[in-house]
């Protein structure tokens, strides 16, 4: 529920001192979110942050909104209860790769398929940080950690592809240290009516430092970020490379110089999910050139709307419930 009151970052900043490791990517995300919240025109008391367990879980304590720090993996379920019961609230979920994709994978996909009006920020650092360094469901194959001294053997999820597969209506990816891109994506997510899933590449400088260097690093990033912009041809690496349609019908990365401009894919966030899904699978992100930005944005009735609409229609049909009539309806007899 938007209003026109002037607010500042301070209105969304709680009195708690953030306690992440110095240099953690979470600080940058927190600062971006706190700074961006006033733009939405939603009062702090009408905003709820819900988090799970992991380093990201602490996020709720630093926002001066209503907050619920839940249990491991269940934040989307708690948030579904909040958003379904009270569609007047703006509900954000802050989660991590282990929280959202491992222990809480089921709740994530169901919140997305139901299109619950939630803004889900998934901090992906490809590691379990709070438990001090085990591989996560987004860690690359062969990851050497405390629990996998000989390297992990299981294939990781691509969070964007997973969200698309779960029929999410808004799916995006951004990077913790790119304040402008991060804020732009958050803005689009906030404006989306329905479930918005945002994967944020987040550097864990203690247990998985440099995992996203190819994309985060000032010198490498510009060459490897494939920035998706709706309605524009997908071109990156300072205009030298592009995503084009290959002869076999698949998408491939190629040099612009070698490509007929008609073959360059124009990004479309509203079309069928096949393009977004293919873009998500284009490369071995984040160790190869990787798409960031909004992959998909489509409109569908939100879960809360559908639930309350059904109640409204039942009341139109039968009138507001009458307890006396309920109790005495059907076969009764008097003594």
């Amino acid at each position, binding site marked *: 529920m938007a209003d026109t009151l002037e607010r500042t970052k301070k209105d969304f900043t709680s009195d708690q001192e953030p306690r992440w490791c110095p240099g953690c990517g979470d600080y940058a995300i927190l600062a971006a979110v706190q700074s961006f919240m006033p733009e939405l025109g939603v009062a702090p008391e009408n905003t709820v942050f819900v988090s799970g367990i992991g380093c990201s879980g602490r996020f709720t304590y630093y926002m001066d909104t209503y907050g619920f720090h839940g249990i491991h993996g269940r934040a989307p379920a708690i948030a579904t209860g909040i958003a379904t019961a009270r569609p007047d609230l703006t509900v954000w979920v802050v989660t991590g790769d282990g929280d959202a994709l491992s222990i809480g994978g089921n709740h994530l996909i169901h919140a997305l398929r139901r299109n619950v009006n939630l803004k889900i920020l998934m901090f992906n650092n490809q590691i379990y940080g709070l438990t001090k360094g085990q591989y996560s469901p987004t860690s690359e194959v062969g990851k050497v950690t405390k629990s996998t001294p000989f390297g992990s053997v299981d294939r990781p999820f691509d969070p964007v592809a997973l969200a698309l597969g779960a029929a999410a209506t808004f799916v995006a990816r951004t990077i913790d240290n790119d304040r402008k891109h991060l804020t732009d994506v958050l803005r689009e997510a906030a404006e989306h009516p329905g479930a918005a899933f945002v994967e944020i590449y987040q550097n864990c400088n203690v247990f998985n430092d440099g995992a996203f260097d190819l994309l985060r690093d000032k010198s490498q990033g510009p060459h490897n970020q494939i920035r998706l912009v709706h309605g524009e041809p997908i071109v990156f690496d300072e205009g030298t490379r592009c995503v084009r349609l290959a002869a076999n019908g698949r998408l491939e990365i190629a040099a612009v110089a070698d490509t007929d401009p008609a073959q360059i894919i124009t990004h479309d966030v509203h079309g069928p999910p096949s393009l977004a899904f293919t873009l998500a699978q284009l490369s071995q992100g984040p160790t190869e050139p990787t798409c960031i930005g909004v992959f998909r944005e489509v409109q569908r009735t939100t879960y809360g709307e559908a639930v309350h609409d059904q109640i409204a229609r039942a009341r139109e049909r039968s009138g507001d419930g009458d307890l*006396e009539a309920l109790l005495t309806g059907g076969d009764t007899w008097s003594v």
Partner: protein
Amino acid sequence: MSTTVEQRERVVVRFAGDSGDGMQLTGDRFTSATALLGNDLATLPDFPAEIRAPAGTVHGVSAFQIQFASTDVTTPGDHADVLVAMNPAALKADLPTVVRGGTLILNEDAFQQRNLDKAGYEADPRTDGSLDGYQVYSVPMTSITVRAVEPVGVGKKEAERAKNMFALGLVSWMYDRPTAPTLEWLERKFGGKPEILDANVAAFNAGYNFGETTELFAHRVEVKAAPAEPGTYRNIAGAQALAWGLIAASRASGLPLFYASYPITPASDLLHELSRHKHFGVITVQAEDEIAAANMALGAAFTGQLAVTGTSGPGLDLKAETIGLAVITELPMIIVDVQRAGPSTGMPTKTEQGDLLAAMFGRHGESPIPIIASSTPSGCFDVVLDAARVAIRYRTPVIVLSDSFLQNSSEPWRLPDASSIERIDPHFAQPNGAVFHPYARNEDGARPWAIPGTAGLQHRIGGLEREDVTGAISYDADNHERMTDLRREKVAGIATSLPPLEVDDPTGDADLLVLGWGSTAGSIRAAVRRARDSGEKVAHAHLRWLNPMPSNTGDVVRRYPRVLIPEINEGQLALLIRARFLIDALSFSRVQGRPLWADELDDAIEEALRG
């Protein structure tokens, strides 16, 4: 030969057939007619876990038992006086439930070799002497039904399906039940399908007339109306009473009802019933799993709803971590556990009281929670109202224990006056200019319930230990101990608001106290009454709140030389009573997936008195 009319005080009738034979429906309609006649009654549906087990087999037998009487009825009856068996499998499965000398009404058409084989009979029980000592009536129900339905012009299959109505008509005649309620019900149900309606009416009338005109049945039985308190009555099963009680609690508190649940036998009926009442503003969510259901409810509780999740044993295990979160966040929430026979999947359609200790202790850490249990189907209504009252007043999750038997069983219920249900004030926190302390407590030990949307009361809660008063995260050693104490004291303190444990002890000097909880109340009452009739001095008390127990519970159990605790588990309440009050309570335990029988309690009482 003219028919004689025999007066009886009480009768137990059991309808049994294939799961597809419509026995539950038959029983249900017989119950309605019986209720309208003014008999007191209790019912017990007994169905297999399989939806459609192979037809004609013992696994597929579905039964419905009803006891009705001209005096008060406390149980569906240990044993049946009359068994209606629609096929050999039903006879095989349920003959052991029939009293010696009882009446068997068999569907003769179904007793063919093929069905006898499927039921596992080596010889026809009707002719090999195994039914000697019973009154056996063999009635060709299927073929008479088909003939009666013929003029309606439905197919043979539809005609045969109506045989349950023939059985209902026949038994209705035998017990002089009014026919109008059944005919009116058929009209309502099949009004839109005239042929099916006509077929069922024809079958029902054929059954009734068969009793009236054949000379097969020597007599019919009359059971007069039971004396009852003046008022308006209806027949109600536990599942419906639970659902309606939750709706009543929503109305009484002004809080919208939010019910999240995952399908599980036998708790699904609660989801089904509540989802029909959207015009009461009820939100029902069929969650992706048990854990999600609990968390959705807890999220809704945070926003100021009357939040409820329902489940059965396996689901209670899955919800345990979330219930712990509700304990530490101190939010009002109701968890309904419709107990079934465990462990694990156990016997999903069969009853048990095996979850008491799981409700008490089934979470990690010190995690106290109020627990209330209903003792009758209709009592579920008041039990959830009280659960809501306590949850909201004390800002705590509350576990409501029901069980499969209560959920499915039904009894006449004198309707409460909806307008006289006491209001429950949620007392939401309001800003008063001072710094808001989410863990400051009132005289009940309860913290404020500040819901999103309230300006100035923004605060953060969660599973981490909180600092007393401020609610900031705290790892302080003394604070953790203080918070642990405060949570325990708050739940223990609920006892001061509970009525004392009442003891039914007419002479006041009984030699034995029988202490129970939950759905065993009826059987215990019946057994205690019989013991008194034979000159024994036996008292009965039944716990409604299991945690905390009423303040006088210790005095009550210590007052009697002997205490016997019958339960459908291996002595869970007995364990609690022995540990809490240091008395040598005797446990009587049965775990056969069925209600306790009053006659097995007779022996247990006898033994306890002599022991």
